[in-house]
């Protein structure tokens, strides 16, 4: 079943992927794998689901996006630039001295960033606090928080999961980027955080599993989550690490890897032709 924003979001996702690839460039290391795996969800949030205004980043009633897996800042930078929070000219200054785009998300450096993340495991707690504050003020805002499946080995994630459930933060939606690969290899072999559905259910969350690289499915699932009240919600987004780049898909070397010049050109051909979002 198609979603009314499907075409727009699919085009945005391609644009995000090209932005990500451009930011890293050929023969440079970057967190390509985890940025690409979650690109469809991030596109769905920024180009359909979230209420936000690039002209007014501090609009009090905006929805918030917290990238708890802060090492994939590339995907958030890609989305923010595509939305118009800042110029794509900043891409070439990624991780350079005085540049707007730091190695990890930084409120003080980049318009549109909502929290400093990068030390894994903390973003969900920040998102919980935000959700609680917004609820206290009676604001309609929702808080979306993207987690990595390697990241959920951090104990603080489960402290936050308990708190969200205790305080019935139904304006909070976590998204678990379940690409099944952590930095050093497969989750199952290196440090098994499965089963995830049962864990989140046991912590009192409403859990939905979805193909996280299927834009229509993600959009429908995000819409459905709006109807669930009284508890926090998590979308388990089953994704492919490196999604969209055949040479990077399910390839742990691209957790923080570099493309050859040929691979970069292949990416350009895949994403660039119709990248611009109307």
């Amino acid at each position, binding site marked *: 079943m198609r979603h009314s924003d499907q075409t727009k979001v699919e085009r945005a996702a391609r644009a995000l992927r090209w932005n990500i690839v451009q930011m890293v460039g050929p023969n440079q290391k970057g967190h390509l794998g985890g940025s690409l795996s979650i690109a469809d969800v991030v596109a769905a949030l920024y180009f359909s689901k979230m209420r936000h205004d690039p002209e007014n980043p501090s609009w009090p009633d905006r929805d918030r996006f917290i990238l708890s897996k802060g090492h994939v800042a590339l995907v958030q930078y890609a989305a923010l630039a595509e939305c118009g929070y800042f110029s794509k000219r900043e891409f070439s200054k990624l991780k350079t001295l005085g540049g707007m785009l730091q190695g990890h998300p*930084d*409120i*003080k450096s980049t318009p549109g960033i*909502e*929290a*400093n*993340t*990068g*030390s894994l*495991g*903390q973003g969900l*707690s*920040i*998102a*919980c*606090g*935000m*959700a*609680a*504050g*917004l609820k*206290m*003020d009676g604001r309609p805002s929702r808080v979306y928080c993207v987690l990595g499946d390697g990241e959920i080995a951090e*104990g*603080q994630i489960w*402290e*936050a999961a*308990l*708190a969200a459930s*205790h*305080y019935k933060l139904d304006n909070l939606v976590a998204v678990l980027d379940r690409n099944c690969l952590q930095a050093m290899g497969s989750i199952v072999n290196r440090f098994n955080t499965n089963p995830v559905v049962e864990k989140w259910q046991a912590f009192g969350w409403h859990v939905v599993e979805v193909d996280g690289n299927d834009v229509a499915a993600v959009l429908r699932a995000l819409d459905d989550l709006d109807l669930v009240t009284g508890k926090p919600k998590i979308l388990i987004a089953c994704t492919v690490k490196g999604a969209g780049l055949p040479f990077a898909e399910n390839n742990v070397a691209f957790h923080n890897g570099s493309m050859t010049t040929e691979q970069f050109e292949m990416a350009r051909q895949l994403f660039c032709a119709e990248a611009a979002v109307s």
Partner: protein
Amino acid sequence: MNVQNLRETYGRTLVELGAENPNIVVLEGDLGKSTMSCYFEEAFPNRYFEMGIAEANMTSFAGGLSLTGKIPFTNSFAAFAAGRAYDQIRQGLCLPNLNVKIVGSSAGLSDYGDGSTHQTVEDIAIMRAIPNLTVLVPSDAIETRKMVRAMAAHHGPVYMRVTRTDLPDVFPEDQDFVIGKPYLIRDGKDVVVFANGAMVSKALEAADLAIANNLSIRVVNVSSLKPVDEMALRDLAQGMRGIVTAEEHSVIGGLASIITYVFRKSGLPIECVGIEDRFGQSAENVEVLFEEYGLTSKHIVDAATSVAGAGA
């Protein structure tokens, strides 16, 4: 001399602030009857968050609340507030300079019964080293009340360490508290003792004792450990023959480090009264610990006598 409990004053002041400012919110790590955040819970249950025994989450959660315009005060024992949640303070609060107040209770050796796990000899050192963080240690209940109000008025992250011990009033009731300022508590002409927390009253005792030795001690309360007005510290040492620091903390990274750094080119002799590089332990009362760790008025007099001789 009037003796008061600082935690009690802290808890009551939070309630005052809560009545004045609806953005004040309080988070607690299941120690509300020790930290005395329980008063705020009673007064404003809808602005009070019991966070369970999960200090890391409490700290980051407070960061999230501050990003919606709240002014959160987090509460736990200093050992956990500063120790267990160090990374959350560093990454989530201080990097973005968020408006969160961290209150480390039962600090120093004051939780004498619980012993080394619950005592802090290093919290000030850890907190001072984090950029953007303001670090404060009140000397008595009067200063606690003024300090808590100043913390709430200041925009940015603040760490305040509060002792469990009842302390005599030393801070003038009519004196404003300004973050960064050291306060002259008692004048003297031979040796200046820069002290904070419980050691300010110990330094006053030392000043009384030293009269018998013909030694005049000036007592300065350095309750702001960061920022601290270095020029004011230098002015307060003018004409002195020597300097003594006195703190209920390791001599590494706290007041001793500040003063030796500020006066490194002064040529003045300096002695440091503080905890040598070791952990605390259980004891029958806090005075026994102060004796064991060299934190009595007698130790201050000895240090002052030593620097006065050296600088004569």
